[in-house]
């Protein structure tokens, strides 16, 4: 790890209410051991420029607020150490191709609207027992990774089909589809049929062209492409009447 004394944060700025064009603004921030890009942004807000806008919350990599495009990669600002970049030059932009509200804050309403479409909840209409529904450790392990999703929208922002798609009612995107597979793969869930009606549709899983951008973008090391391939398999088997 390098012992930087200062770093330059080159931050993408744009306030649609005021600016006609986006621009970059550079800030010099003092660097301490283990300091993260998010802490660098805190320093900017606290000491240099209160007008900079970004989202943050847990600062521990679990809430999904601070997904940004940092030095050419999708990253959580809170998990990214300034020291990883020995030249101390850090370029920070909002999640690409999403509508910018201001600076690093993007509109996530379309992302969440698509998440809601896939019925993102366990469907089991049988009377629950007085205790838990049993699930074997093996069945439970099938959900690993997928349940780590923090809905940060990195995958959604990285997906070429999303770029080419309508913001409203367009392609569901990798996060929503992975969530769908998370439930269909759950031994307790009985909602596969009704969920497949939504996701095996015009704007659903067939529009995934396996670009694998989402796999690379995911800060939680989830493999949405694999989840979508599993859904495709399920859809074909369903057409053939095998389930």
């Amino acid at each position, binding site marked *: *790890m390098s012992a930087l004394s200062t770093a330059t944060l080159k931050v993408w700025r744009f*306030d649609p*209410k*005021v600016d006609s064009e986006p621009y970059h603004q550079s800030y010099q921030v003092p660097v301490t*051991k*283990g300091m*993260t890009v998010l802490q660098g942004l805190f320093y900017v*807000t*606290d*000491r240099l*420029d*209160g*007008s*900079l*806008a*970004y*989202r*943050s*919350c*847990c*600062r*521990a*990599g*679990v*809430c*999904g*607020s601070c997904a940004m495009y940092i030095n050419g990669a999708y990253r959580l600002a809170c*998990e990214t*150490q300034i020291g990883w970049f020995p030249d101390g030059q850090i370029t920070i932009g909002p999640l690409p191709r999403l509508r910018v*509200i*201001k*600076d690093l*804050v993007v509109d*996530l309403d379309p992302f*969440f609207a698509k998440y*809601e479409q896939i*019925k*993102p*909840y*366990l469907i*089991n209409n049988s009377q*629950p027992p*007085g*205790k*838990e*529904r*049993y*699930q*074997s*450790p093996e069945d*439970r392990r099938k*959900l690993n990774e997928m*349940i*780590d999703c*923090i*809905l940060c929208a990195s995958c959604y922002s990285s997906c070429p089909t999303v770029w080419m798609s309508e913001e409203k009612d367009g392609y569901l995107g990798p996060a929503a589809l992975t969530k769908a597979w998370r*439930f269909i793969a*759950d031994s*307790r*869930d009985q909602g596969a049929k009704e969920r497949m009606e939504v996701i095996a549709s015009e704007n659903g899983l067939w529009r995934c062209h396996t670009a694998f951008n989402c796999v690379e973008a995911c800060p939680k090391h989830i493999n949405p492409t694999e989840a979508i391939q599993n859904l495709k398999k399920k859809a074909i088997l369903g057409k053939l009447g095998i389930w």
Partner: protein
Amino acid sequence: MIHHQVIVVGGGLAALRAALAAQEAADVAVLSMVYPVRSHSGEAQGGINAALANNPDGRDDSWEKHAFDTIKGSDYLADQDAAETMAREAPGCVYEMEHWGVPFSRFEDGTIAQRPFGGAGFPRTCYAADKTGHVLLHTMFEQCVRRGVRFYNERMVISLVVEDGRCHGVIALNLVTGELEAYHADAVFFGTGGAGRVYARSTNAVINTGLPMALAYWAGVPLKDMEFVQFHPTTLYGTNILMTEGARGEGGYLINNQGERFMARYTPRVMELAPRDIVSRSIQTEVLEGRGFENEYVYLDLRHLGKEKIMERLPGIRELAINFVGVDPIEKPIPIQPGQHYTMGGIDTNIDGETRVKGFYAAGECACVSVHGANRLGGNSLLETIVFGKLAGNRIARAFSGGELPPSDPAAVERAYRAIEQKLRRMATADGHENVAQIREEMQQTMFFKVGIFRERGEMMEAVDKIAELRARFPRTSLGHSGTTYNLELMHKLELEGMLALAEVIAKGALAREESRGSHFRRDFPERDDAGWLKHTLATFSPDGPVLSYSPVTITKYEPQARRY
């Protein structure tokens, strides 16, 4: 003006659970400062307690034993009827969450897995690896989606409207547009989380400033037991990110610079699994006596657990340690130190979440029922949110179906709106050279080092003076810009005003309480004093500072005894 019968403030577990329950009988809307899945509930790692008796070592567990452990852990300050309610409701609430889809880790027989936790007589902490809060929060949000709960996201509530002992609504700042919004409601529920950010070295999310507690306080609702602040023993050195108690539950060691498992000196029977207050003081003592590393931290050593167990049970801890301190716990011990973690005190409520203000309810970390008393047990906070969120939501639903609430008055909301509008205008035009962040940092340092793990009169008097000085400097902070969208500077200023009020309440309550109990440890009064201090502190707002009064602790069947582990 926007009207809903019920306004739920907060997006975490307590708020969402209350919304789901209240929606059974009323029109509900949720106002959340963040997209709800970002809420701090999601940061909880180790688990949620319920006496399910699934663990082969826990077959004799019962809700009564859970209640007793909670009461003993609280150093007998918990209201015993509330602790009993929580423990009794726990299994049903956990099963309900399982039925709703929570992917709990499982035992071989397919039941919910349970691990040992500090201060618990049996392994009763249900978990999903070390991401229990995350999966509970996502599942709760999923249920809200399923039931069509109405959300107003990225709204920061900055006023609780109370007139004549009746709540009429809230005023919120829309963070995206920068506009003030008035919400008229017949019932308002706060599930807004703790106030960790009043302290330096906190595990809490940056939104956990406790401002809503201050709003309730300013509106005349007393805050209870605020001097009881939990310091978690194992937070990552440098960032104070939480390293779950589950790491010790799974068998992790605490090691000093002599290579000793030093807990043998403090709690030889239960070793690392003593309650948090005791383990934090033990670590701090090791560091103060020169047996720490760099005079700052000790090690949490997981290496002997082996790669397989760490990857299966503690994958999140491993990832955090790698990302934030470059340490893979499979190969090296993790540097940890105690950090502020939980606000035991809060808005004074009863078991049904009711407060002294008609139509105003609260539950979760922002509230004080009280079940945690002077020290909360690990695994009881997630439980508290779900149990008491549900009970409060049910109470609200009953109030509507029974027509119990008198009409609320939109004119009161209108008056509050105009007052807040003027206040924001004053803030925007305030002149001065003080910096919000500077005052915040001075407050956080003061609270951590003078009203912290070890306390004594002289230092706390200094803290009280310092907070008064910071409060005097606060009006001289100015805003550097007038943008409306996502104005972080304005948000931070509003939050700081609330935090300074809470800091004053905490410090004055701690100074007044001349005994040691749970997390409140006085070097100058090192013993618990049941004759003088087995009572709750109530802080009521006055323009001259908090007025302290006291109320009795409810004892059912557990007579206070010496707390030994």
